[in-house]
């Protein structure tokens, strides 16, 4: 590596690439450390001047504020840590549902853009170009405005019996609690496990003998059939908890709050436009010759798509899809603008009440980093499974 001439050892030290590399690194690291120390020092001085203690002790104190909706039990008497967990769960719920919904819409729109049907392709293009060029926050405001300007509970829209749409959110009937429910869930999981086994066996046999087996239909039948049989066996208990108007609001049934509904709609519709483009480019990336070759082998259109096009398109689709899923999860933090109690919103309230800005933001950052890493790992694992195996 050293460029220095022999016999010029004294000068060559500074001209040695290795020495200069080390020097640069030491200087840069020293600068970064100095900057960090300066910022931390200032922060500590400022906090001391304002009489704010540092540390995470505040997490154990009573939160004292209410949270509109929560998947777990929560009262204002619970601790800040508990409130933050509620916020995190709310974030995860909206992100998980949003990802599922956005993928569904995105795949449909992406395929529609490639449709041979001129009208359908144009409509899909209109959707994509219209949605992705407008800020998500603006769309959220519109969704929230629409949901909250629905009529009140007394004039609630009633599109289907038992379902009420009003400015208090969406009310749906829920089945009444029954001892069979956990068993139904178990049967569903068991059926899914059996289906997985059938799939493995079918693929192994196909690889060995070349005889195909309709594992998809069989698997679907097993997954849905097992709980259904159990459900019918115990006499099909169909008692429903139907929401009814009582006073100024509904009682009973399940609720989708206006904030949640607006956030979910906004996130899915916005992200779906990006996913549609990813799906489209993924399918276009598969050379037309592949389709022609598959058709000339006598595969049907559906089989061509499933066995030839999709496995190759997925390789192109998965990496950008991962980053869209991450974007959706991060964008769920816009909930703070419309009052859905997600993690950022709860952390914001906590910071305002306690003054522990550094710790509160630290918690939010740590949580999002963990979510990002976990989702990346999961998608990388899936990507490795569908990736091209080269010798």
């Amino acid at each position, binding site marked *: 590596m050293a460029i220095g001439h022999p016999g010029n050892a004294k000068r060559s030290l500074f001209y040695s690439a290795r020495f200069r590399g080390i020097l640069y690194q030491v200087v840069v690291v020293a600068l970064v450390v100095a900057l960090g120390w300066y910022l931390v020092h200032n922060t500590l001085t400022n906090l001391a001047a304002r009489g704010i203690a540092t540390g995470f002790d505040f997490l154990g104190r009573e939160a004292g504020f209410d949270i509109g909706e929560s998947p777990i039990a929560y009262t204002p008497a619970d601790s800040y840590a508990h409130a933050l967990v509620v916020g995190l769960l709310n974030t995860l719920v909206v992100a998980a549902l949003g990802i599922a919904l956005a993928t569904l819409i995105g795949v449909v729109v992406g395929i529609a853009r490639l449709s041979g049907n001129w009208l359908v392709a144009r409509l899909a293009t209109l959707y994509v170009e219209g949605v992705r060029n407008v800020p998500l926050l603006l769309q959220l405001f519109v969704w929230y405005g629409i949901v909250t300007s629905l009529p009140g509970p007394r004039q609630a829209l009633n599109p289907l019996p038992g379902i009420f749409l009003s400015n208090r959110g969406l009310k749906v009937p829920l089945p009444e609690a029954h001892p069979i429910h956990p068993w139904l869930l178990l049967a569903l999981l068991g059926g899914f496990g059996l289906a997985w086994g059938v799939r493995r066996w079918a693929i192994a046999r196909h690889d060995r003998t070349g005889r195909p087996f309709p594992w998809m239909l069989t698997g679907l039948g097993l997954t849905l059939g097992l709980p259904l049989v159990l459900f019918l066996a115990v006499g099909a208990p169909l008692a429903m908890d139907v929401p009814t108007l009582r006073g100024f609001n509904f009682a009973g049934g399940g609720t989708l709050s206006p904030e949640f509904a607006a956030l979910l709609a906004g996130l899915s519709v916005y992200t779906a436009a990006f996913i549609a483009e990813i799906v489209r480019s993924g399918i276009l990336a598969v050379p037309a010759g592949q389709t022609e070759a598959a058709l000339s082998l006598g595969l049907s259109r559906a089989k061509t798509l499933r066995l030839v096009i999709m496995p190759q398109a997925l390789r192109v689709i998965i990496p950008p899809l991962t980053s869209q899923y991450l974007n959706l999860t991060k964008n769920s933090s816009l909930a703070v603008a419309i009052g859905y109690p997600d993690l950022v919103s709860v952390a914001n309230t906590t910071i305002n009440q306690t003054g522990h*800005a550094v710790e509160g933001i630290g918690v939010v950052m740590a949580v999002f*980093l963990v979510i990002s890493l976990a989702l990346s790992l999961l998608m990388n694992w899936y990507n490795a499974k569908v990736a091209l195996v080269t010798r």
Partner: protein
Amino acid sequence: MIGFEPHDHSPTGIAAADVEEPSAAVAAQPPKPPLKLLGWARENLFGSVPNTILTLLALWLLWEVVPPLLSWGLFHAHVTGAAAQCREEGGACWTLVTERHRLMLFGVYPYDQHWRPLLATFIVIALLATSTLRRFWRPALLWAWGGGFVAIAGLMWGGFLGMPYVETALWGGLPLTLALAVLGIALSFPFSIILALGRRSNLPAIRALSVGYIELVRGLPLVSVLFMASVMFPLFLPEGVTIDKLLRALVGIMLFTAAYLAEAVRGGLQAIPRGQEEAADALGLSYWRKMRLIVLPQALRLVIPPIVNQFISCFKDTSLVTIVGLYDLLAATKAALADPEWRPFFVEGYVSAALVYWSFCFFMSRYSQWLERQLATGQRR
């Protein structure tokens, strides 16, 4: 091919033409059926049964959506009058825009001084328009931008030539959105190049710092970065030093955008063949001259489309400063709707703001596609 009668499309017709006409090569080409409107519709809309069903579904959807939309937004819309009139007669209330567009466009900037942000907006748009043309891509453009920024800052702040001083807390609307987007990109660009070079460096400590920064920031939502900027930046500074709210948001956007831009630039750096660097080394160029003269000019040209995409993202993301209490275009629109009299017409207000955002973003995305083709022709041999 042009003068063929329809019956010539049958195989026998072509065979006959083959025999009789001397120009066999022309006749042997597959004949094109005449593409009339009906033929086109049969091909593209009613080709098969599922296709026909899809077309009918789409037509039904259009029939359900378009006439009511036109009736609401155009035929029964109001442009002037009072809000009460809109409420009584129904239809879209574009009166909101005619009455309150100045609040929506310029926020709480002093009313009688609105010509200043208006002029500033025109300067930015003129500079942007000039920058789109490759003919103007030369060092003088940078000077023009520098001069433009000085002029805009002077116009917005004022305090001389009889223009009263206006503090940044009163800036708002479209000029603020544009300023945040343009400055955010302009300031983050050099930083992102340093980060991208750092990530590709052979020096482990520098690589680790760059990777750490990029991955950390990309793992965070912009909202939390903006919160951090607005809450923690004042704590970072020595006692007694305050930092402007607008500047805090700008630094937040800059730090955030730099991480994403760095990844785009890295994509370009990775696409440059190793031989280019080795050739530069062989010529005895230093690291910085090698990067400045050989690698970056090629790499950056490759990644102009992703950079423009990042610009679009940044432009849309500036709307998040609404959450930390700045009056950008979205927040100003929200403020215009705060009046209970106008609140029911939020759709009209947001649609107008959305159209402004949409026009900028759509133009930029079309421009990036056009540029991609332009640059690709340069690559073709």
